[in-house]
């Protein structure tokens, strides 16, 4: 039976390590820098752009989505870099040998590592995400459709990539596992774009390929959720001169809130991937 106490010991150890190795301070510093730059840049847009009114709102909304995309990329990389060395190096240098000789199971080590790193990522995603959106609102007066849910989707996306990186780290060297997770993230995003094209032009093959890719690695489901939460409304699109708002789906920076079924799949995917990872770790010789 899995002991939650044991999981918490490893999670606390992981958090302390992140703190001592200055990962938290680096993230806090970068957040302050990015939020400051965001506020400054959006202030300039609001002051200096020659266009005003609906067109400016459309412009600001597009830059906001692009800013979120950049942040989702940073989060994804942070998740991969944190998760890829979570297990493998500890086995190779004998650190896990000393820990597993104690009354603790491999599953508890794996879950503890995930929980500690997930806590760092979620706090970072939410804190930095809300601060950046606040900077946009303060600088321009523009508020996206669902500003409160967008960072939640990004936090979820980072958890999926963290899970992928940790599972790979049970069997694959950190560099190779990290590279695989990054490539997976990129491919999932591209597949999402192609799926969007399929949706826009009623192409069943592309739509099916997009769905299949989301089932295999659902990170793009949550990115699209974030993009949807930050997307301009149809009236903003029309006001900005977009005659066919439906075609906006074609944009790689467009999206829509995922269905509950897709959200459930994301949660199930994380649970299933962790179960596979635990199995792989249990079968690995130390």
């Amino acid at each position, binding site marked *: 039976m899995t002991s939650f106490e044991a999981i918490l*010991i490893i999670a606390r150890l992981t958090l302390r390590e992140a703190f001592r190795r200055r990962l938290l301070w680096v993230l806090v510093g970068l957040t302050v820098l990015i939020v400051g730059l965001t506020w400054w840049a959006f202030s300039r847009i609001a002051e200096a752009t020659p266009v005003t009114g609906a067109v400016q709102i459309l412009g600001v909304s597009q830059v906001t989505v692009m800013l979120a995309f950049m942040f989702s990329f940073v989060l994804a990389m942070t998740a991969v870099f944190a998760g890829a060395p979570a297990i493998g190096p500890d086995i190779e240098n*004998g650190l896990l*040998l*000393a820990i*597993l*000789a*104690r009354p*603790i*199971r491999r599953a508890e080590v794996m879950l503890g590592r995930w929980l500690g790193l997930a806590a760092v990522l979620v706090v970072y995603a939410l804190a930095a995400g809300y601060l950046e959106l606040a900077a946009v609102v303060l600088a321009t007066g523009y508020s996206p459709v669902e500003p409160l849910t967008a960072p939640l989707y990004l936090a979820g996306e980072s958890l999926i990539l963290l899970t992928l990186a940790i599972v790979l780290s049970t069997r694959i060297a950190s560099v190779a596992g990290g590279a695989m997770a990054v490539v997976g993230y990129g491919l999932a995003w591209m597949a999402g774009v192609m799926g969007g094209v399929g949706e826009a032009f009623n192409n069943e093959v592309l739509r099916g390929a997009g769905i299949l890719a989301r089932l295999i690695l659902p990170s793009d489901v949550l990115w699209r959720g974030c993009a949807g939460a930050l997307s301009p409304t149809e009236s903003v699109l029309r006001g900005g001169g977009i005659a066919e708002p439906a075609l906006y789906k074609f944009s790689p920076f467009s999206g829509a809130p995922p269905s509950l079924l897709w959200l459930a799949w994301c949660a199930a995917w994380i649970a299933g991937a962790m179960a596979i990872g635990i199995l792989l770790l249990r079968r690995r010789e130390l």
Partner: protein
Amino acid sequence: MAAAGGADCAAIETHELRKEFGRIVALAGLTMTAPRGEVFGFLGPNGAGKTTAVKLLLGLSQPTAGHGRVLGAPLGDVGTRRRIGYLPELFRYQGWMTAREVLALHCELARLPRAECAAEIGSVLDLVGLAGRAEDRTETFSKGMQQRLGLAVALLGRPDLVVLDEPTSALDPVGRQDVRAIIAALRDRGTTVFLNSHLLTEVERVCDRVAIVDRGRVVAELSMAELTRESGVGIRVTGPGGVPLDVASRYGPTRVDGEWLFVDGIAEAEVPALVGELVARGGAIHAVVPTRQTLEERFMSLLGTPPEVPDDETALAGHEAEA
């Protein structure tokens, strides 16, 4: 920590324990018994399966076949690990932690009562001579200090069984002496020590019983008393007719090395009679010294030939240097 259920059984018992890694057979069928409260030496050449056996005993690896019990519980029992201290052969602790923090982590992992942890950590730090470096990060430690810290971790919580895998490989002679003293103290308080070591002198000095393993099987399991019982005598004798072997051979197997005559297996009470006969035959006796078969000699004779793996020669060279 008090010994739980099964206190009257052996500390370690294995029956035909087998471990295969693909086509490689690391353990062919390990059968041995380590009694409670003794220091049990586990010897063998490199590749004999010693570290694999240790991992199986601690549940860090699953056997392909066979079974065993540690402190009365089946191999791999998670709860039993609370009562076991382990110093791995190749290990590292979190470099960003201080020695005290590493020990505190292992107190938590071993589920020691929180109120006892500070005193327990202070006690083991003193014991291994690291009290002065308790607040230093372990990444600044030398290999020898890492090994001392590993020993401190293994001793936390007064375990019933302490498994030491090459505990002195990185230590200087002073450190080795310290470890011997710690092992002796553990035995005095009734702790079973399972010592896996290449250093035969080390084993000979501290162990009550040894198992010699070769190609994944125990080829001999004997107590130190049994080992030393096979004793003899060395006599430096000169005389006009050379060494009178015919006289000596009646007392046991003989061999001559220069002016030294060695008689194996002779009873201590028979030595004066042998010396008397040698003198009666005109021999001049210069010295009479008791001899016994060393663990190294027994080790080498059991393995048949010198170990094939070069590392063992290094280990034996270390033994000779110490002797």
